[in-house]
């Protein structure tokens, strides 16, 4: 129950130490018989399951139910089932679909640029250059900072009069009076850049770790066969990184599509809805317009679409993997 409000993304998606591999069937080794064992396991887990059931599984189910009601966020809520009304109304809601389109543009461009820039930096950090330590530490900082602070910082950078971005553009003779976050044409690209700044480090670090796992002999063999750097990259590096690229791309896409905090503090969806990500739209529908049921329907549609897209992507990757 985390992604869109997630502020510190879970750093290592899975275990931070080792792979969690234990000898096969370790449970049976330490004393006791099957049933006692199971009772023990249940006893250990119930305390963590209870709050989770109460605060994430139950709300999730209630959330889906809400989507079929006309619930409103008022002091004495009275609501009744209205079937698929909310969903049919959604079909006609141009603003929702526009936010959906913006969310797609945002997620695709941030994820794509994150991958390209992250790959570039990972390759640089993998080759023998100076300043690696500095770059590595710098690469971690965007990831660590609270999203609110990141947004405040970039608002200062983009500031139309006293901001360094316009000053730098002016210094080289380019137009220097752009109000980046308030201009219809620049707002979305401007927030995308911040999204890339925040998201690139994690991609870089992951790819770098992957690069370090590729056996050096593979590259040497390719060199001996006369492959140049580009050829070595496409024939050896990329295929070896493929599983990593697949998993970070799909996870990053979902995280980006679900993002909220960064853009909310940067623009609140403005100007004129040009940066209205779907999560912002749903939030405003629920907590400003107070239409809980309707907002829940939006949430359900978004979840379904993300799951479908992700399955399609993973399926295509799976197929490609099989053909090789």
């Amino acid at each position: 129950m985390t992604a869109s409000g997630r502020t510190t993304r879970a750093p290592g998606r899975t275990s931070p130490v080792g792979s969690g591999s234990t000898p096969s069937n370790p449970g049976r080794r330490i004393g006791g018989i099957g049933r006692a064992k199971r009772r023990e396991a249940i006893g250990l887990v119930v305390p963590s399951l209870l709050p989770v059931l109460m605060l994430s599984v139950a709300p999730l189910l209630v959330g889906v139910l809400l989507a079929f009601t006309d619930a409103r966020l008022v002091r004495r809520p009275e609501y009744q089932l209205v079937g698929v009304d909310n969903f049919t109304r959604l079909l006609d809601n141009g603003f929702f679909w526009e936010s959906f389109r913006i969310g797609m543009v945002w997620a695709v461009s941030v994820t794509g640029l994150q991958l390209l820039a992250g790959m570039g930096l990972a390759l640089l950090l993998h080759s023998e250059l100076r300043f690696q330590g500095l770059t590595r530490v710098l690469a971690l900082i965007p990831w660590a900072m609270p999203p609110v602070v990141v947004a405040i910082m970039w608002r200062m950078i983009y500031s139309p009069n006293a901001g360094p971005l316009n000053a730098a553009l002016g210094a080289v003779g380019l137009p220097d009076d752009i109000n980046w976050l308030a201009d219809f044409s620049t707002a979305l690209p401007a927030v995308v850049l911040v999204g890339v700044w925040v998201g690139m480090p994690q991609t870089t670090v992951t790819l770098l770790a992957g690069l370090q796992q590729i056996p050096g002999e593979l590259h040497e063999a390719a060199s001996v066969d006369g492959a140049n750097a580009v050829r070595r990259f496409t024939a050896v590096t990329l295929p070896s990184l493929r599983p990593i690229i697949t998993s970070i791309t799909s996870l990053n896409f979902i995280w980006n599509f679900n993002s909220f905090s960064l853009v909310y503090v940067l623009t609140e969806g403005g100007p004129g809805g040009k940066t209205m990500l779907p999560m912002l739209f749903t939030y405003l529908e629920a907590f400003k317009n107070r239409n809980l049921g309707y907002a829940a329907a939006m949430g359900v549609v978004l979840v379904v679409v993300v799951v479908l897209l992700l399955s399609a992507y993973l399926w295509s990757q799976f197929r490609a993997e099989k053909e090789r």
Partner: protein
Amino acid sequence: MRAVVKPAQYLALFAYIVFLGFPLLWLISASVKSSGELNSLTVNLIPRSFRWENFTDALDRQGLVRSAANSIVVALISTGLVVLIALPAAYALARFRGLFRTVGTGWILVSQVFPVILIILPLFLILRTIGLTDSLVGLTLVHTTYTLPFALWMLQGYVAAIPNELEEAGAMDGAGRLRVLRDIVFPLLMPGIVATAMFAFVSSWNEFFFALVLLQSPDNYTLPITLKMFVGGEGKVALGPLAAGSVLAAIPSIVFFSIMQKKLTGGLLTGAVKG
């Protein structure tokens, strides 16, 4: 060939360093500039005069101290709860196989990608029914649940890294289950517990969305919400104190990530390959 490649690589590296580092430098520089300099049209990175008053101003006037205190309380208590709840569960997850483990890991992975918006709507209704919206107690509960999945996953990794043979040896020497846990597992697990606790603390400290939805009265605001409200009144914003407050808010997370750098990198690899 080589003579061209190296400089090109350094040029690219320099571009990355500027892209990653400049915004941060700018924030720090703004935090010690006078308001006159911040609003002047000549823009410079190195402040003409250093003014530490922005920090004292931020702490004095902006309700930042109160919200920082709220953030600390919420983060500390939810961290304690997360560790207490996750510790036994992580042990079970790492040591017992079967359906239970599959369900547990499945839930953890799903929780990483699920949009919170669909959960916060009903959660808001539930918390309001029991009178816990606009309350730090409610927020602490929510932060606990939302950090739990990943903390559990982290911690089970640390448990799995402790060789089972050590436990067996303890059992062989006649120590009971609890003795084994207390004298063998727990001491070895301590670094993992510390790392997990730090992760839980930083997650709660940085968290924005739940706090935005749940908290209404300024007395209850956490630090991120106060900073956001501060931005809201654009135009008459005191940029210096805002930058100073932001720098202060970023410190705990940056310290955590610097300490954990190596571990995080290792985890990412296994995560990406196996995930």
